[in-house]
């Protein structure tokens, strides 16, 4: 189990370009659809918890899933698995950058990845929308969060808390 956790999160860590929301579809595919380690709702709840706790979503997911399935050692190995690829690749890239300045090269690759990253985030948004919006009340909260988040620079933490309060009042 612990090995499976390690390798699954290693794979997720290896392909988590763009950071943050962009890695959600891949995590969802592996953790929810393929292994049934979390339900769809639980997955969204982890994303929500990640908004109000320190640390990147991928790492938070790994720690949570690992702990849920195998306790502290599970949490340790999944967290290690998800961070390992980026640590190894970053060490190699750092060596390259410190030796010869190759920053331009990486920038060029990333500029090509940008539409992909936005597409990944859009897919995550659709998947989470499908699971969380099911009536007028949830749709109202969705629109409110979308508009407020787009128009004003409101902290995600505050928005998440407001959502929780609204949920408590209207359901």
């Amino acid at each position, binding site marked *: 189990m612990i090995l499976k956790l390690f390798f699954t999160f290693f794979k997720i860590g290896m392909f988590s370009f763009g950071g943050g929301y962009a890695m959600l579809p891949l995590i969802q595919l592996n953790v929810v659809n393929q292994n049934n380690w979390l339900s769809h709702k639980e997955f969204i709840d982890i994303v929500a918890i990640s908004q109000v706790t*320190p640390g990147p979503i991928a790492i938070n997911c790994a720690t949570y899933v690992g702990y*849920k399935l195998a306790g502290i050692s599970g949490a340790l190995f999944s967290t290690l698995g998800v961070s390992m690829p980026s640590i190894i690749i970053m060490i190699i890239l750092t060596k390259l950058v410190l030796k010869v300045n190759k920053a331009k090269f990486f920038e060029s690759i990333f500029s090509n990845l940008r539409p992909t990253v936005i597409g990944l985030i859009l897919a995550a948004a659709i998947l989470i929308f499908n699971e969380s919006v099911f009536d007028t009340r949830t749709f109202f909260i969705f629109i409110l969060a979308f508009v407020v988040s787009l128009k004003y620079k409101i902290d995600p933490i505050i928005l998440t808390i407001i959502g929780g309060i609204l949920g408590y009042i209207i359901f």
Partner: protein
Amino acid sequence: MNAIDLFITFFKIGAFTLGGGYAMLPLIEREVVDKREWIKKEEFLDLVAVAQASPGPIAINTAVFVGYKLMGIKGVIFSCLGSVLPSFIVIVLIAAVFTGIKNSPVIEKIFLGIRPVVAGMIFASVFRLGKSARINKISIIFVLLVAIAIWIFKITPIYIILLSIIVGVLRYLKRSNNI
């Protein structure tokens, strides 16, 4: 400068980067460039470019870069441990408590309200990123294709990412050949 300094600085960065992502860049810059003067401003910009091209969260990538530059592999171990530890502790605590209470009616109500907020914020981030990336008509089609491929055709994101990297390398090689 010693390994403990590295650990503490990245622990602080890890503890205060709520939500993760690019929001933490100003904090990292202040700690690592302005306060500690571990790396220069231009190096920081290179670091951001490289951190984006490498998989994994910006927080970890930055920790690796700074740790390695200052103390080699030993530095990487201390800076990465520092940056991961705060969220690790918090999530383990939450997981221990949350699995017990998540079926309570109050928590369920609260999360019924929070879930659509998450969806709304992620949609908003698509629009914001699209604006800042100066997306044109061709790339909008590309963005939609990626989303549809994953959403409807359930294609593994890994293939799509690999393909984009290959296209990026080819375009870079073509451009540098033309010069």
